[in-house]
Each structure stands twice: as C-alpha cells, then as structure tokens.
C-alpha cells in the first residue's frame, strides 16, 4: 500500500477527464463554427459532451451478426489507445514513434469496429479507413524529416531543440503542412473524412450504438486533444506548450482554422481523397530524400 500510487492513479484519471472535456468542448466549437458559416444557428458548444452523456445511459444489444468479444472490446480499445497516447505523449513526453504507433492503432479500431459488427455499412466504413491508411505515409516521412533536423524523436528533446532554434514550423513548413492534413483528416466533416461520410450512414460506428458509441465518443474527444497537443508541441514548441493556458489558446485557434477549412471545402470522394493524400506523401518523401542527400 503506497500513497504515491493512489496519487498517480487519481492524477491520471483527472488528466484524462480534463482532456476529454477540452476535446469535447473543442469539437462542439467546431460544429458551432461550421454551422455559423453555413448560416444555421448550430447546436450549443456543449453539445458533444451532452451527446456523450446521453448515449452513456442508452440501451445496447449485441447484434446477431456481431463477432464477440471483439465487437465489445474494440470500443474499449479505442479509449485505451487514446488514454495511453495522452499519458505517453502529454504527461511523460516520450518518443514520437510510440505516439504514431498508437495513432496507427486507431486505424485498427476503425477497421475492427466496421468488421466485427458484420453490418455492410460498418464494413464499408472500415474498408474506407483501410484505404485512407495512405494518410499515414506522410506521417513516417514527417518523423524522418524531424529526426534529421533534431537528431531525436523524444518529444522532450524536440521541445528543448525548439527552445534554442525557434519553432520547427518555420524550418520544416512542408512537414508541418503534412501533419496538418493529418489533423484535418481526423476532424469531422473535413474534405478527407471519408470514413465518417454520411452516405454510408455513420461509417464504422453504425452498429456501435448506445453505451459503446458513448465510449468511442469519449475516445474521440481525448484524441482531438492529444493530436492538437502533439502538433503544438512538435511544431510550435515551448512558446505555447510551457503554459497549459497558452496551449488551450493554441488549440482553440487551430480548431478555428480547421473548422473554417471544413466548412468551406466539399467532402472529397474516396478516390480523390486518397489521391490527394498520396500526392502529399510523395512530396513529403521527396522532401525527405532531398534532405538526406543534400545533408
């Protein structure tokens, strides 16, 4: 029995509550801004959190087509992935590579949600998520480019590098752009959000309703917080990341920019979305090779 471990557990829970509330409010703000640009009044900003709480008290049943326990476990795994990403990235500042591994596990969650339910809509959403795995390749090239610049992938070292040399966003503008496209593809209603396209009902979440949907929504809220934090930490650095309040301001600004883009651009078809992402990844790859060869 140690008092310190109780403190750690409570701290961990408090941090994830904080991340969920901030991420949920930002996603609500995103929806509000998109609605205002389209000339609708839009739901209140707390709508995302409200939905999560509402679904938490709804009934679930296991569909006859579902493959259990994967059907159930994949929703739990969604939270596990993003809480671990929150702790490893935001709290412990470990390697960027581990965070990218966890981001890739999010693809497994999407694919698994769609497949394990046995629903054709869910399957379509899952297969689209597999297609949009093309978005991960710029990620690796971004990692490579950052490593060439800073000689380390540990977030702590990257932040320390930026203390001396200034924000990376000015030194690697293309890598920042590629990462920004990744953020954009995670946002709802964005041009790259083919996974959650309304033409396939709710995409991979079609058969995960009620309580399970609420769990996935909690994970999505935390995910939004973590992704924005990583962007701010890696590309803007100690200027914003040293103070949690300034980080919050940065997140609001980023969400505002992403919402503007989401509201003003149409949703691409799957082929076009994948093609554009592949073009960006090829450009990022060329950038990486140029940096390796020129030095």
């Amino acid at each position, binding site marked *: 029995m140690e008092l310190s471990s109780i403190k750690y557990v409570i*701290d961990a829970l*408090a*941090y994830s*509550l*904080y991340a969920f*509330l*901030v991420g949920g*409010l930002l996603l609500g703000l995103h929806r509000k801004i998109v609605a205002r640009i389209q000339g609708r*009044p*839009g*739901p*209140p*900003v*707390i709508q995302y*959190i*409200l939905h999560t709480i509402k679904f938490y008290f709804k009934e679930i049943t296991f569909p006859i087509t579902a493959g259990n326990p994967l059907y159930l476990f994949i929703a739990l795994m969604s939270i596990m992935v993003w809480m671990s990403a929150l702790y490893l990235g*935001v*709290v*412990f*500042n470990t390697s960027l590579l581990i965070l990218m591994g966890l981001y890739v596990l999010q693809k497994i969650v999407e694919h698994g949600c769609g497949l394990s339910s046995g629903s054709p809509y869910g399957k379509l959403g899952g297969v689209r998520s597999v297609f949009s795995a093309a978005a991960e390749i710029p990620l690796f090239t971004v990692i490579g480019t950052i490593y060439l610049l800073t000689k380390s992938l540990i977030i702590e070292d990257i932040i320390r590098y930026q203390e001396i040399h200034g924000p990376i966003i000015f030194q690697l503008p293309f890598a920042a752009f590629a990462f920004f496209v990744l953020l954009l593809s995670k946002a709802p209603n964005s041009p790259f959000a083919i996974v959650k396209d309304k033409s396939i009902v709710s995409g991979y979440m079609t058969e995960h309703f009620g309580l399970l949907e609420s769990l996935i929504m909690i994970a999505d809220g935390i995910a939004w917080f973590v992704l924005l934090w990583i962007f701010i930490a890696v590309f803007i650095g100690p200027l914003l990341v040293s103070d*949690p*309040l300034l980080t*919050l301001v940065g997140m609001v600004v980023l969400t505002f920019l992403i919402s503007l883009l989401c509201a003003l651009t149409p949703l691409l078809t799957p082929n076009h979305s994948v093609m554009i992402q592949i073009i960006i990844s090829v450009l990022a790859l060329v950038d990486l090779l140029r940096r390796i060869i020129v030095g």
Partner: protein
Amino acid sequence: MNEVPYNLLWCILSLTLGGFVGLAYSYNKYVKPYVEGNIDRWGLISGILGGVLFSIPLPYNINYPLSLFLLGIPLGMRPGYGRVELILGVSIAVLGYLIRGLIGR
C-alpha cells in the same frame, strides 16, 4: 513528467456544468426553437455577474471557476438564446482583466 493542470480542470468542469444548467433552464422556459433579439433576464444577470466576478480575487482562486460557471449558463442556452448575454459577460470579464492588469502591477 508534466503536472495535471488542476486549476484549469476545475474551470472547464464548472463551465460545462454551467452549460448544462443553462440548457435545462432555457429548454424549460422557452418553447420557440429560435428567436432573434430576445434577452433573458436571468441569463443577463448571470452573464454580468460572471463577468464581474472574473477579475475579483478570492481565496484559492475560486473566482475563476465560479465566474466560468455563471458565464457557462448563457453559453449553454439553446440555439439563438443567450447570445447578447454571453457577449456582454465575456466583454466585461476581458475589460475587468485588462483593468486589473493595468492597476495591479
């Protein structure tokens, strides 16, 4: 290892709770889905009070969660309601914060 920003956690938590209270209140009071130019009396009072309370220092920094709770009430009101109240409250809060920063230093 980064510390948990507990002060911000309380602020965000109270903002959300205020939003819930505001939503429940406005749904009970108003039937029409969307009205322009309507000012709610209690929303106005809580918005102004929240704005004023933001820059009054209280022990344990309790003024920030309290004022955000009060500001959250007009923030969470149903679509179309509570806009003027929110803008008024936030502008009072920002004004008070700036004045306090100018005088206090």
